């Protein structure tokens, strides 16, 4: 099959991957994946467990660098700039491509400090007053401000799971990233907290390029406009979300979304 058959042409990609292979030692986890992600749409990566969707997500901000045995081949660009080039500063890349993890992982510090940490290490706020503005803006965007404005100096770990995850989103937003990667952000949350996060993703769409990994197909259908289906380390099909769910072109995609495996 040709790339055109499974892939979606995107006019002005924010991030592009071309023929990306990822190896863990000898094992190949990602096989020749090419994909474009743009600013205006939320992109969902779906697929059965172990299909490589999270691995691929983590190559987009080089979080796989921390795994000693991981090796990445191919080209991934952010605004046309190769992120694996030696001239790319990983620290800056991760500030530009933020990440939200599966399990809420606030720092064991105050809510304020959780948000302020990123701007502080990147020197984004000149004064205490500036920092207060950044913290309030980030918490508002993360939909958490009203709930925590009276207890900014309480520990972030004392919040509920859903609030913690929104705090982590606020923390990612605070450094003004261009792309936000979300690795199954709702898998540890209850349905109500999940609904709030999904609502938040809708509100953030357009301001940031959002890529979300999910094992929940309904969630992918609800929050995303573009869906990529991964299987056994390959990108099986990438298209407009409604097309993928109603009219998949690949047999494997159809089998997965109808619940034949996964």
């Amino acid at each position, binding site marked *: 099959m040709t790339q055109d058959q499974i892939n979606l042409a995107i006019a002005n990609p924010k991030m592009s991957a071309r023929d990306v292979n990822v190896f863990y030692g000898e094992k190949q986890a990602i096989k020749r994946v090419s994909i474009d992600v743009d600013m205006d749409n939320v992109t969902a990566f779906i697929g059965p467990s172990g299909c490589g969707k999270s691995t691929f997500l983590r190559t987009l901000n080089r979080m796989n660098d921390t795994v000693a045995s991981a090796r990445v081949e191919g080209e991934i660009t952010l605004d046309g700039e190769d992120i694996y080039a030696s001239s790319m500063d990983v620290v800056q890349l991760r500030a530009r491509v933020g990440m939200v*993890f599966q399990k809420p992982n606030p720092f064991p510090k105050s809510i304020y400090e959780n948000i302020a*940490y*990123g701007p502080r290490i990147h020197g984004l706020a000149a004064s205490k007053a500036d920092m207060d503005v950044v913290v309030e803006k980030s918490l508002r965007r993360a939909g958490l401000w009203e709930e925590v404005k009276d207890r900014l100096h309480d520990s972030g770990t004392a919040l509920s799971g859903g609030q913690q995850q929104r705090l982590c989103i606020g*923390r990612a937003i605070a450094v003004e990233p261009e792309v936000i990667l979300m690795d199954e952000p709702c898998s540890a949350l209850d349905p109500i907290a999940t609904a709030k996060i999904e609502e938040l993703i809708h509100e953030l769409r357009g301001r940031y390029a959002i890529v979300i990994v999910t094992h929940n197909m309904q969630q992918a259908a609800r929050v995303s406009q573009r869906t990529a289906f991964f299987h056994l380390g390959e990108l099986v099909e990438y298209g407009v979300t409604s097309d993928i769910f109603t009219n998949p072109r690949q047999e494997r995609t159809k089998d997965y979304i109808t619940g034949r495996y996964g």
Partner: protein
Amino acid sequence: MTVERLPTDWKSEAMRKRIAGRYAKERRFRLIGLGAVVLSAAFLAFLLFTMMGNGLRGFTRTEIALTVDFPASPVLLDPAAITDESLNQANLPMVTSTVAKQALGPDADSLLSSTAWITIRDAIKADPSILSRTETIALPASTGIDLAAKSEGPPEAEAAVARLEKAGVLTTGFNWNFLSASDGTDPAQVGIWGAFKGTLLTMLVTLLLSFPVGVATALYLEEYAPKAWWTDIIEVSINNLAAVPSIIFGLLGLSIFLNLLHLPRSAALVGGMTLALMTMPVIVIAGRNAIKSVPPSIRDAALGIGASPVQVVFQHVLPLALPGILTGTIIGMARALGETAPLLMIGMRAFIATPPGGISDPATVLPVQIFLWSDEVSKGFVEKTSAAIIVLLAFLLAMNGLAIYLRNKFETRW
């Protein structure tokens, strides 16, 4: 053939027996546990009881109240011009002896400590006006009298004590001298200060060397070192090093610090360096465990918003690992505090009668002082040994208390 399964009879004889056996097993296990706790508590109580029984006497001394009529005594001093020099020229030992003989009888020299005159000198120095009146001063008794008054001494001393008690001049005072003096030959005169100061200096050197090196090693091995054969070798070596008998470290210190580097013998510097070698692997192991137990999600979180690896280590991993590292450090330090053998090897068992002024001065430490005193023939040293043990245990207790305090203070509540 199919075996027909009957419904389980939960009330059968066999079942009841099994249940009774289960309960009996649990009761037995609880009793054994309780017995172990009681046994160890009894040993501890026995240790403390005997220590206190012997040692507390070491903190007191027998004193003889001597009434000195200064104007009538042969002291030739001008109350208006008391200087160290004039006091030295006044021949106070002679004066003390004369006055004591008048008051206590011809055997006064054997009743009073040979340094009793120092107490008189200090009294004059503190308040020169006593030179113009009659003053009663409590002077330290000799070792024989001290022993006889506290428990049993030589027969002639026992007789003298009976006589002094009748005269009502025998008192018991707190032995400040024990806390301020150093080693000596007369058990009535020895003190713990020299050894205590030596311990402080040695521990300081140990801490300053082993803590930074140990923590840096732990951080490097956990956060930066690649998984390779040579890091495995380092890990195995460090674990082995922590189990090496301390006397070996003493020999190492002797051959490297003294024979090769020619550092001063018997000094707190060398003692501290030797103990640092011993403490470091403990800190490395405790530190690595503490660093390992920091959840990886925190590292991800920090890396994910663009913290550099150094920022991740120093702003997130290290603060979270600190309680564990501190606990390990203090356990290692407490072990070093009680160490005697390696310090004997580097000459810290010398007789040192003045407290060390710095880390390169000859010094001794508490456990070595205890070892030396326990070896003395004179009976007066028995209670001094026990008293020194109490000081050592108090030091140890204070360190462990500090460990608990620091752990609670820095512990992160998730």
